[in-house]
C-alpha cells in the first residue's frame, strides 16, 4: 500500500531551510541566475519550515502588532512629503543597532512588481503593502522570522513568525522586539484606548495572533464548516492562505482573533488557542477515521490520484497544484506514502506560486506557459521522472 522509495525527493541539491545564514532575506539579487542554486529566496522562510510543535497540522504561528507614531497622521492620510519623512524617520531608527534581530530594510518603491509579489508569497508583506502608492518598505531578519511593514495601513505592522504551533514563544519574541521599538520610536497610545490605530478594528492591543492550519482531513470528511464555526462562535476569524479575502487553497486555513480592545494579550492568546486546540484535535480524529475501514481505500485513492497528477500531468494551475500538494502532505504525515520529504513538499508549495515560479525560471510567463512550467518544476522538485 505504501509508495516505494522515490529517492531523496529534493531536486535542488538539498540543504535544510535554515543552513544558509548569509542570505539577504527578500533582497532578490538580480544575478542569482543559477536556478539550481541553494538560494535562500527559493527556500521557505520561518513560516514554512515544517518544524515546531504539531507541525503536521499547524504550519505556522504569526503575531502581528499595529503601531503608529505620534506626530504624524495615520498612513492613509499622509501626503507625499509626510510619507517620505515618515519613511526615512522609521528606517533611520530601525537601522540603529540594538534590536533583538538584525534587520535588512527593503525599500519597496524601486523594486519590480514581481519582486513585491514574491514578498507577498513569502508572507513577509501584505497585498495591500505591495500595491500601495505610498513610500513603503519592509524590514526583515535573516531567517524571515521577523518582518516589519512600513507605511501599511498603520505606520508599522510588526510581524513575528514561528514554525508550527508555538504562540507563547512567538509572543515573547514579539514582546522583546516591541519593547525595543518603543524605546526608539514614539508610539501613539492612550490609557483609555491603548495603541491608536488607523482602523478601529485594531485599536487597543493592535495584536493579531494567527495560526495557519492544514486541514485536509476536515475538508475531505466535510466537517470543515462545523470546525470553523467553533472559531467563529468565539469571535475569531477564519481566512484562507493569504489572509483577508483569500480562499482556503490547498486546505490551508488561518485562525485569528478579531477583538483587540478590552482583552489583554494573554486573553487573546487563550481565545485563539482554545479554538485552535479544538480544531487540531478534531483534525486528528477525522484523519484517524479516514484511515480506518472502508474509508481507507477512498483516502488512499485520493492521495495517489493527487500523486499521479503531480508525477504525470503536463499542465498544472496553481490551484490544482496546491490541492495535489495538500493531498501529498497529508499522505506523508499519515504514512500512506513514503519517499517524499515534507521539506520538498513545502518548497514545492512555495515555488509553485506565480511570482516564485517566474523568478525561479527567470522568465516572464503567460498563465498557460506558467502552468506547463509549474508541472515540470514540481516533477523536478519531487524527484519524479521528467
Amino acid at each position, binding site marked *: 500500500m505504501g509508495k516505494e522509495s522515490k529517492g531523496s525527493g529534493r531536486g535542488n541539491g538539498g540543504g535544510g531551510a535554515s543552513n544558509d545564514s548569509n542570505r539577504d532575506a527578500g533582497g532578490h539579487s538580480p544575478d542569482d541566475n543559477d536556478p539550481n542554486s541553494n538560494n535562500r529566496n527559493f527556500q521557505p522562510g520561518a513560516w514554512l519550515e515544517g518544524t515546531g510543535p504539531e507541525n503536521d497540522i499547524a504550519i505556522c504561528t504569526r503575531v502581528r502588532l499595529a503601531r*503608529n507614531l*505620534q*506626530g*504624524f*497622521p*495615520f498612513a*492613509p*492620510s499622509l501626503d507625499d512629503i509626510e510619507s517620505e*519623512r515618515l519613511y526615512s*524617520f522609521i528606517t533611520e531608527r530601525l537601522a540603529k543597532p540594538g534590536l533583538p534581530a538584525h534587520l535588512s530594510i527593503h525599500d519597496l518603491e524601486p523594486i519590480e512588481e514581481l519582486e513585491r509579489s514574491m514578498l507577498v508569497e513569502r508572507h513577509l508583506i501584505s497585498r495591500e503593502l505591495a500595491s500601495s502608492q505610498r513610500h513603503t518598505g519592509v524590514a526583515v531578519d535573516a531567517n524571515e522570522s521577523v518582518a516589519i511593514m512600513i507605511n501599511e495601513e498603520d505606520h508599522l505592522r510588526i510581524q513575528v513568525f514561528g514554525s508550527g504551533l508555538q504562540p507563547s514563544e512567538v509572543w515573547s519574541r514579539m*514582546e522583546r522586539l*516591541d*519593547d525595543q521599538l*518603543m*524605546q*526608539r520610536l*514614539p*508610539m*501613539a*497610545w*492612550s*490609557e*483609555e*484606548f*491603548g*495603541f*491608536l*490605530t*488607523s*482602523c*478601529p*478594528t485594531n*485599536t*487597543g*492591543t493592535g*495584536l493579531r495572533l494567527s495560526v495557519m492550519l492544514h486541514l485536509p482531513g476536515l475538508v475531505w470528511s466535510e466537517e470543515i464548516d462545523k470546525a470553523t464555526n467553533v472559531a467563529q462562535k468565539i*469571535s475569531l476569524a477564519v481566512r484562507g492562505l493569504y489572509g483577508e479575502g483569500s480562499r482556503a487553497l490547498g486546505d490551508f486555513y488561518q485562525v485569528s482573533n*478579531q*477583538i*483587540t*480592545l*478590552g*482583552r*489583554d*494579550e494573554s486573553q487573546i492568546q487563550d481565545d485563539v488557542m482554545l479554538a485552535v486546540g479544538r480544531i487540531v484535535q478534531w483534525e486528528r480524529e477525522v484523519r484517524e477515521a479516514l484511515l480506518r475501514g472502508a474509508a481507507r481505500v477512498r483516502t488512499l485513492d485520493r492521495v495517489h490520484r493527487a500523486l499521479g497528477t503531480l508525477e504525470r500531468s503536463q499542465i498544472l494551475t496553481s490551484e490544482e497544484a496546491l490541492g495535489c500538494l495538500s493531498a501529498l502532505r497529508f499522505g506523508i504525515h499519515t504514512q500512506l506514502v513514503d519517499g517524499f520529504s515534507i521539506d520538498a513538499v513545502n518548497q514545492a508549495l512555495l515555488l509553485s506560486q506565480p511570482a516564485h515560479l517566474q523568478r525561479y525560471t527567470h522568465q516572464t510567463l503567460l498563465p498557460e506557459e506558467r502552468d506547463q512550467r509549474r508541472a515540470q518544476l514540481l516533477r523536478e522538485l519531487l524527484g519524479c521522472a521528467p
Partner: protein
Amino acid sequence: MQYCTACQKAIATIVVMDLSEGSVTGSQHVCAECAEQLGVTPPKQTKFAPEMLEDLLGGIKTERNDATLTECCPGCGLAPTEFRSKGRLGCPRCYDTFRNELMPLLQRIHESQTHTGRLPSTMAEAPDYAETADLTELRQKLEDAVRGERYEEAAQLRDDLRRAERGEAIDEEPQQ
C-alpha cells in the same frame, strides 16, 4: 488662471470646496477679497497676506469654510462625513475629535470600549520620548493662533512645528 466666480473681475486665488460624504461635491474659485467677504478667510491685515496664512497652515485649511473647520479633526483635518463613510481615523487626535461616534463603534466591534493590556511604560522613560514634541498639539496651537490672529505667536509655532517635523525636537538638541 481663473477669474473669481463672485466678482468676475479679479483672479481667483482661493478654491472653496463643498464636501459631502467625504467627497467633493462642488467647488468655487474666488479672489482673496471675495473670500474675505464670504467669511472664508479672516479679514486681511496689512502685514498678513492670504498667502502667509496658506503658508502657515501648509495650504490645507484655507480650502474649507469655518463651519466645516470646527467639525473636522484639528489634528489632520478629517471631516466627520469622511470618518463615517470610511470608518477610518486620520490621526491619533481623531480618537478625541470623533469620540462620541467612536465609542458605539468600538462597542460593536470589540464588545468593549476600554483597553486592557500592554502599554508602553518603557517608552515614557526613554530619553528620546521625553523630548518628543507632540506635533498634533503644535498644529492645533498654530491653528488656534492663526484663528485668533495672533500672528507673531503663529510664526513662532510654525518654526517650532517645522523643526519638530524635521525630527530635531526628537533628537537631543535643536540644530541650527
